[in-house]
């Protein structure tokens, strides 16, 4: 888990300061070093630099495949840039103006947020419930835990084929079922909200189990004696969950919320594979076009990389804003728990 637990951190000065790692106080270091042999100095360097050297591969790779594309995308977004023809004229912020002035962009933003809310919300709530159930004493716990993860192993394309049959407008499973009990069909690919629900259910099916397992791991790490103490104090299971489990797994919950926010806002494969129209850009009237699909549409169907890059950057800023919002909200909620 990348987050430390704020409540278990020992009081006092933060670890990692000079006193903890260097071995010698800062004031005595300079005169002492002059008296060292070069082997001793090497060993000193070893202690000081090696940790950074050991973690550097990650940052070098991150620089290469994370920061560089990000910066290059920003560069491309200021140019008229064709997929085939390459770099064109410098156009300043014109690409951003074009994207922001395009009704499809705003439609895609609303669709993305709607699908995000419909997926991430229920997903985390259900994952919490499932994880809570899985922490209770079950027979063959590994079997239950693996079953929950099974949908995650299935490739999105396969999921899309299954859900395509379930959510078919004319001959789909649900609509034929509705027909049997005398209800009219739902236009899953036409009605905007219905299409969002269909896509969200695809996402939830895939990710709920994954999130449940992560939350389960966090729940297992909560010291058992706390529960014993709570029980002695007369707290029921529900009270234990709200007052003990939730606050204790807060950092993990934050992690799950942040990753599912990022994933939700970048949603692409599910809506694209759900799409039946020849252009595959999110329904005949872009009922379920998402921002990432718009990026793809600009870049690979219209072959305008400049517009695609500008849209990517707008999406990036959107995600950053949401991540900060999440962080603040979870922090604040944590204080009241």
């Amino acid at each position: 888990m990348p987050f430390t637990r704020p409540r278990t951190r020992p009081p006092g000065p933060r670890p990692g300061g000079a006193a903890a790692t260097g071995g010698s106080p800062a004031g005595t270091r300079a005169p002492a070093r002059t008296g060292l042999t070069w082997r001793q100095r090497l060993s000193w360097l070893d202690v000081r630099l090696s940790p950074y050297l050991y973690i550097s591969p990650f940052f070098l790779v991150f620089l290469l495949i994370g920061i560089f594309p990000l910066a290059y995308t920003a560069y491309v977004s200021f140019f008229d840039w064709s997929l085939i023809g390459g770099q064109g004229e410098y156009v300043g912020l014109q690409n951003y103006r074009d994207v922001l002035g395009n009704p499809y962009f705003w439609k895609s933003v609303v669709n993305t947020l709607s699908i995000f809310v419909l997926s991430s919300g229920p997903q985390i709530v259900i994952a919490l419930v499932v994880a809570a159930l899985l922490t209770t004493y079950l027979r063959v716990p590994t079997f239950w835990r693996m079953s929950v993860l099974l949908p995650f192993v299935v490739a999105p394309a396969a999921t899309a084929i299954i859900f395509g049959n379930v959510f078919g407008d004319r001959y789909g499973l649900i609509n034929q079922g509705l027909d049997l009990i005398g209800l009219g069909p739902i236009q899953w690919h036409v009605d905007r909200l219905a299409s969002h629900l269909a896509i969200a259910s695809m996402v939830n099916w895939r990710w709920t189990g994954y999130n449940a397992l992560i939350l389960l791991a966090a729940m297992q790490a909560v010291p058992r004696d706390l529960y014993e103490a709570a029980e002695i104090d007369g707290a029921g299971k529900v009270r234990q969950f709200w007052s003990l489990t939730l606050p204790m797994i807060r950092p993990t919950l934050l992690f799950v919320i942040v990753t599912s926010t990022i994933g939700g806002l970048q949603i692409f494969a599910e809506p694209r594979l759900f799409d039946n129209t020849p252009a595959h850009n999110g329904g005949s009237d872009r009922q379920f076009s998402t921002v990432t699909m718009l990026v793809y549409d600009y870049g690979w169907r219209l072959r305008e990389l400049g517009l695609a890059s500008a849209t990517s950057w707008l999406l990036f800023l959107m995600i950053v804003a949401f991540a900060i919002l999440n962080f603040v909200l979870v922090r604040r909620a944590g204080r009241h728990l």
Partner: protein
Amino acid sequence: MQHRNSRALALSAALALSLGTLAACGSDDGGSSSGDGGSGTTEPVTISVATFNEFGLEGPIEAWNAEHDDIKIEQKKVGTWDEAKENLYTKLAAGSGLSDVEAIEGDGMPAILAESDAFVDLASDDVEGRWLDWKQAAGTDADGRLIGYGTDIGPEGICYRADLFEKAGLPSDRDEVAGLLGTWDDYFATGQQFAAKMPKTAWYDSSGGVAQAMLNQVANPFEGDDNTINVENPELENVWATVTGNVDLSTRLPQWSDDWTAAFQNNGFATMACPGWMLGVVEGNASGVKGWDFANVFPGGGGNWGGSFLVVPAQTEHPEEAQQVAAYLTSPESQLMAYADKGTFPSQVDALDDDALTQDVRPFFNDAPVGEILAERAAAITVQPYKGPKYSDILQAFQAAILRVDDGSNTPEQSWKTFLSDVDQLS
């Protein structure tokens, strides 16, 4: 000091070793590629051929692989041209990753010709005069370089369900049906008759298919001869008004969607515009369904829908072998095999009067003399629509516009407005 030295030694040894491995990798690469390009006696060259939908090339490829040891052909298939097109442009931009031979849909060819630098000039004495003139012209760029070898053409007839016609009290014999559907007005009027008797079955498979068929009879559907985009012309507005005015006769489904495919098995519709290559699609989707027939008629005269090309991207490592393979796959013999398998009608002059074509009868289509009918349908083609570089993109926007009316998400007026703004973005 002893200790330190041995450490340094180990370090430099390790370094030397890793450099050696790298160098070995490098020389290895060089060795194999020079082997490919040079004598060619050791490893066979594999030429990949990327196709979409059904090209019927399995037979010719198998025959080639059985005979040749130096060059092997490997086919890569995807579902639709739209998918193939995205893959094509992505890898064109990347500069690598394309197959040695790529199939291009006829409507997408003008855009490819606009990027003809990225493809190999395939002109050669061996293929001189192989194709129908207009087909060859559609594969030639502005500088006269032959970029695409034609595979098939798409002369259109009408596929229909004789059993459903009978139920609706319509004549079901293929000659009588041909007499019934000579003009678009006849076609829609007969459809109304059919719909009155058979309210649960649509008259045709998709509005998009009918629109495409009508567009194929318009000289300048989207662009003037100088490539200026003009979508507010009376011919296109007529197609738009006719198609959106008759959506009740359609399944209202997007062509190639899951529901559209399922409709073949569910008595979803009674007729459809059928270019030669569509016969294989119908036979596949409607497998097990009885009653399909093929009439020697097309509303409003003849029309050509689609028909594809094979091109060789300049990024290939084996341009000569790829050209050889493309020439083989588009030879009259190969295309006759493809025709026998999937109904793709040959674009090669020598194939057109071959008995294998003219005597061809299809049991699935109630023993219709499909070869003879398609040949007559090909002769009836009078108009070749002008297709500029943006044709394929505008067509996609037009199809989406029709779909919006089909599925009820827009009124025709709203949808047309959106179409105009979509086209604005293309230019």
